[in-house]
C-alpha cells in the first residue's frame, strides 16, 4: 500500500489529521435535549439548542468525562481549561458562534502508536459543540451556493464533540488510514463515541503538504468531506500528487481549504485563506473555567478499559501471532479476544482458536453463540489430526449454524471419523505401489511429484486423511 503514496523525485508527504467525534452522551453538550442520531428533524431542540435570546449554556458533566477518557487513552495531559466563542455567520450555527476550546484545551500533548512502533503525536483533544445539519436543494453542487432553498435540522446542534488534532507526524497515506482506524478502535473501546464515519459521528479533516527532506514543510491544504477510511487514503494520494505536480510545473501551493469529491476522486478549492473568516475568538462569558480535580481524573483513568494496542499485544503473545497482523487486529476490534481466551482456557489450541474466530466469527459479536468449550473441542480435533483442516472448516460452519454443540458427534454425522495413522500408512503404501512413476521421481528429488502422491492418497481416503500426516509419512519413507 505504501508504494501508492510514495511521491516521485524525493518529495516527502506530511500529513496531520483533525478528527471530530460526536460523544455518546444521552443529552447535548449544554442542554437537556436528547443527543440521538436519526430522529425526526428538529425534535431534539430547546431554547439553548436554538440559541434563543436569553438562553444560557450549562456544561454536560458526562461529556467532560468522555472527553477525559479520550485524552487519557491518547496519553494526553488533562488540564484546567476554558471555553471560547468562535464567531461566524451560518444558518446552521444558531448563536452565530460555536462554543469551543481555544488556548486552554482539556487534553494536550499525547500520542498514539501505529504498527511498526510509529509514534504519532497528539497536539490536543478539545471539547466543542456541533452545528446543525444543512441540506441544500436545487442547484447542481449540493452546496448552498446556487441552491433554491435549504433545510436545517437542529437535532445535531449542540451535540458534544471532541476534536482530536494530531501533530504533522504522518508520512504516508497508509499511516493516515492506520491512524484513523486505530483512533476509531480506541474511541469504541473507551465508549466515548460510536465513531461511525458513514453517519458523521466521526469526521476527518486532512492537512496535506509536501516538501523535500531537510527543507521546511510546504504550504498545507486542508481537505474536508473525507467520510471513510478509504477516502482518507485516496484523498491524500490525490492531493499530494496534485501538489507535487503543481510545484514541479512551476506553480506554488496556496493555503486553502479543499473539498474531497469521492465520486471523481479529486479535491477542489472550497475557500482560500483570503476568504477565511476572522473568528474573533474570545473567552465565553457564559461559562466558567473547567478545572477537573485530580481525584476525578484519577477515577476516569482507573476506569479505562485495556486499550486495543495492549489487547492485541496480549492476544498475539498468547496465540503466537503477529500483534500487527490481521487476526490480532480483527479479533480485538470485534471485542472477541476475551472469547478466544475462554476457548484456550477450555483446552483449545491457541493459534487455531484466534484464526477460526478471525475467519468465521465476523457476525458473532463479542459473545459468540458457540460456546468456548465447543470451539475448543474443534481446535483439538484438528490439532490431533482427528479431522483434516478442510473437515474442520466444514465443522466450524456446522457449529456456527447450530449455535454450538457436540463437535465429535457432528464429525461422526458427517462421516469425518478419524483415520488412525496405521490406516493412512496403508493408503500411503498402496499409493507408492500404484503411482510408482511419481514415487520414483519424488525419490530422485523432484519435490513437485509429492503433490500428485498426496492428491491420490487424499482422493482414496475420500478426504478423511490429513494432508499433513500424508506428507510426513511420504517424507519419512523417502530413502
Amino acid at each position, binding site marked *: 500500500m505504501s508504494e501508492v503514496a510514495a511521491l516521485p523525485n524525493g518529495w516527502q508527504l506530511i500529513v496531520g489529521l483533525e478528527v471530530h467525534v460526536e460523544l455518546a452522551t444521552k443529552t447535548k453538550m449544554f442542554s437537556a435535549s436528547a443527543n440521538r442520531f436519526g430522529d425526526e428533524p428538529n425534535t431534539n431542540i430547546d431554547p439553548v439548542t436554538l440559541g434563543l435570546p*436569553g438562553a444560557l449554556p450549562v456544561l454536560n458533566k458526562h461529556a467532560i468525562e468522555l472527553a477525559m477518557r479520550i485524552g487519557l487513552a491518547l496519553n494526553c495531559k488533562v488540564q484546567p481549561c476554558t471555553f471560547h*466563542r468562535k464567531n461566524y455567520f451560518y444558518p446552521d450555527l444558531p448563536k452565530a458562534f460555536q462554543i469551543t476550546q481555544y488556548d486552554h484545551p482539556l487534553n494536550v500533548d499525547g500520542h498514539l502508536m501505529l504498527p511498526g512502533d510509529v509514534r504519532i503525536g497528539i497536539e490536543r483533544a478539545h471539547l466543542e459543540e456541533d452545528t446543525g445539519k444543512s441540506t441544500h436543494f436545487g442547484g447542481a453542487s449540493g452546496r448552498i451556493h446556487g441552491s433554491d432553498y435549504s433545510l436545517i435540522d437542529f437535532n445535531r446542534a449542540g451535540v458534544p464533540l471532541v476534536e482530536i488534532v494530531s501533530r504533522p507526524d504522518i508520512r504516508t497515506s497508509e499511516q493516515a488510514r492506520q491512524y484513523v482506524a486505530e483512533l476509531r478502535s480506541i474511541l469504541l473501546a473507551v465508549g466515548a463515541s460510536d465513531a461511525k464515519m458513514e453517519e458523521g459521528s466521526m469526521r476527518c479533516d486532512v492537512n496535506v503538504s509536501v516538501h523535500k527532506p531537510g527543507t521546511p514543510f510546504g504550504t498545507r491544504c486542508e481537505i474536508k468531506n473525507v467520510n471513510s477510511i478509504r477516502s482518507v487514503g485516496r484523498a491524500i494520494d490525490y492531493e499530494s500528487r496534485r501538489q507535487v505536480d503543481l510545484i514541479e510545473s512551476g506553480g506554488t501551493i496556496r493555503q486553502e481549504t479543499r473539498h474531497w469529491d469521492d465520486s471523481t476522486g479529486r479535491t477542489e478549492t472550497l475557500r482560500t485563506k483570503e476568504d477565511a473568516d476572522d473568528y474573533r475568538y474570545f473567552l465565553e462569558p457564559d461559562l466558567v473555567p473547567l478545572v477537573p480535580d485530580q481525584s476525578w481524573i484519577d477515577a476516569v483513568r482507573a476506569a479505562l478499559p485495556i486499550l486495543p494496542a495492549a489487547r492485541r499485544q496480549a492476544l498475539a503473545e498468547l496465540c503466537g501471532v503477529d500483534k500487527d497482523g490481521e487476526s490480532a487486529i480483527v479479533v480485538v476490534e470485534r471485542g472477541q479476544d476475551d472469547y478466544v481466551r475462554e476457548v484456550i482456557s477450555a483446552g483449545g489450541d491457541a493459534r487455531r482458536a484466534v484464526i477460526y474466530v478471525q475467519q468465521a466469527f465476523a457476525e458473532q459479536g463479542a459473545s459468540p453463540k458457540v460456546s468456548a468449550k465447543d470451539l475448543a473441542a474443534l481446535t483439538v480435533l484438528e490439532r490431533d489430526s482427528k479431522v483434516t483442516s478442510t473437515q474442520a472448516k466444514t465443522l466450524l460452519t456446522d457449529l456456527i449454524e447450530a449455535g454450538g454443540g457436540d463437535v465429535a458427534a457432528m464429525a461422526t454425522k458427517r462421516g469425518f471419523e478419524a483415520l488412525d495413522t496405521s490406516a493412512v500408512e496403508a493408503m500411503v503404501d498402496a499409493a507408492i505401489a500404484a503411482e510408482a512413476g511419481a514415487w520414483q521421481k519424488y525419490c530422485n528429488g523432484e519435490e513437485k511429484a509429492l503433490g500428485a502422491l498426496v492428491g491420490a492418497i487424499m482422493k482414496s481416503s475420500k478426504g478423511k486423511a490429513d494432508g499433513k500426516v500424508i506428507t510426513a509419512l511420504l517424507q519419512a519413507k523417502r530413502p
Partner: protein
Amino acid sequence: MQKLVEIASGVSGGTLSASEVVEEYLKRISARESEIHAFNLVTADQARHDAGKIDNDVKAGKKVGALAGVPIALKDNMCTRGVETTCSSKILQGWKPPYDATVVTKLRNAGAVIVGKTNLDEFAMGSSTENSAFGPTRNPHDISRVPGGSSGGSAAAVAAGFAAASLGSDTGGSIRQPAALCGVVGVKPTYGTVSRYGLVAFASSLDQIGPFASDVRDAATLLETISGHDPMDSTSIPQPALSLVSVLDQGVKGMRIGRVTDLPEGCEPDVLERLEAAFDALRSAGATIVDVKLPSLQYCLTAYYLIAPAEASSNLARYDGVRYGNRVDAADLNSMYAATREAGFGEEVKRRIMLGTYALSAGYFDAYYGKALKVRRLISDDFARAYQSVDTILTPTSPSVAFKFGSKTDNPLAMYLCDVFTIPTNLAGHPAMSVPFGVGADSMPVGIQVLASTLGEQVMFKVAAELERAS
C-alpha cells in the same frame, strides 16, 4: 401609594384583594401611560386573571408567596412565555419566547402579578431610553426630561405608580442611573446573585438583573425573592437567596464609609452637594468617613466601551433573520443577513456592534479588548485595596439630574459619560445601589450610589436604609 410589603401582607392576610390592587394600578396606567410611555406592553388581562387566582387561593386557605398580589413590571428584555419580548428592537418585534426567564418563574411562584413589559434603550444600550425603537419613555417628574436608561421604563413605572416595583437589568448602570433620575431605589446586585437565564444578553460578563422599588425595604424584599443559585446559569453563585430585610434597621454606627478622592471630573455641583449631605448624614448616624483612592477609575469608561460592545457584537450576531424575529428577504444569504440587520437594528446598536467587532478582530484584539481586560483587573485590585480600609463607598449615581430630551443624542460620548460612576462596579462584579437623597437642579431627584464588595449586599442595604431615614 401602597408599599410592596403592605400589599403582600394585606393580600396574603385576606385584608386586601389582589384584584382590587391590580385594578387600581391598571387605572393609574390608563390615566397616564400615554404621557409617560413606560410600557411596550401592558398585560392587563393576564394580570387580572393572575390576581383573581391569588384571591381564590387566599379564600381557599392555600399558602401564597411573599409577593402575593404585588403588581410588578418587567423590563422588556426578560423572556416571558408566550408574551412578546422585544428588547425595544424592531428585529425582535413580535417574538414570543417559548419559556420564562428564571426571575419570571420566581416572581410567579412568589405570587407577584406581572402588569407589563417596560420600555428600554434598544437591547439595553443607552442611558435615556431615547434609543428605543418604539419611542422614548418620559420622566414622571418632568415629562420634558429623560427617565435615564436603559431601564427607563422600569424606573418610570415605579415612579409613576404603574407598578409597586419592577425589574431592570444593569450592564453599566442601567438600573442605578434611571433610578436616580426618577427618584426611586435601584439595585445592581453582585454578579451571579440573580440568574441571567432568560435575560436577553447585552454583555454577558456584566449583565445583572435587579429591582426598582419606591423604598429600600421593598427593594430588599424583591431582591430576596429573585436571588439565589440557578443551575441554568453557569455564572450563578452557588449560594442561597440573599437575606436583607432583617438588617435594614441595624444602622451604620462604627461603619467606615469611603469617599473617593480621585473621582472623575464632570459631576454637577448640585449632585456633589447632595453627596456631601449624604456623608454628613452618615457621620451623624455614627459612621466614619474615610478617604480612598481608586486610580484606575479614569480608565473604566474606555474599558467598558470595549468589553461591553465586544460581547454584544457576539451576543447580537444571532439576530440574523434565519430562525426568529424579523427577516428582510434578499437575493442570497449574505444579502438577507445584511438587509435584516440593517432594517432591524437602530443606530446605537449598530455603532456598538461595529465597535465590538473591531475590538475583537485579528490584529486589534490585544490593543483593544486585551487592554480593556487589564483595566478590568486593575479596577478590581483598586477596589480590593480600598475595601481593606472601608466597608462601603459612596459616590453620586449620575453626574447630573435628569436631562432634557435630545440634549445628548447627537453626542454619543456625552451620553456614555452618564455611566462614569456606575460602570466600575459592573467591571468588578460588585453590588451597588442608588438611593434617592433629596433634589438638585430644577427640583429633580438626585440619587446617591452605595457601593460594596462582592456579596456585600447586607452592608450596602444598611447604609441605603440609613440614607433613606435621613432624607
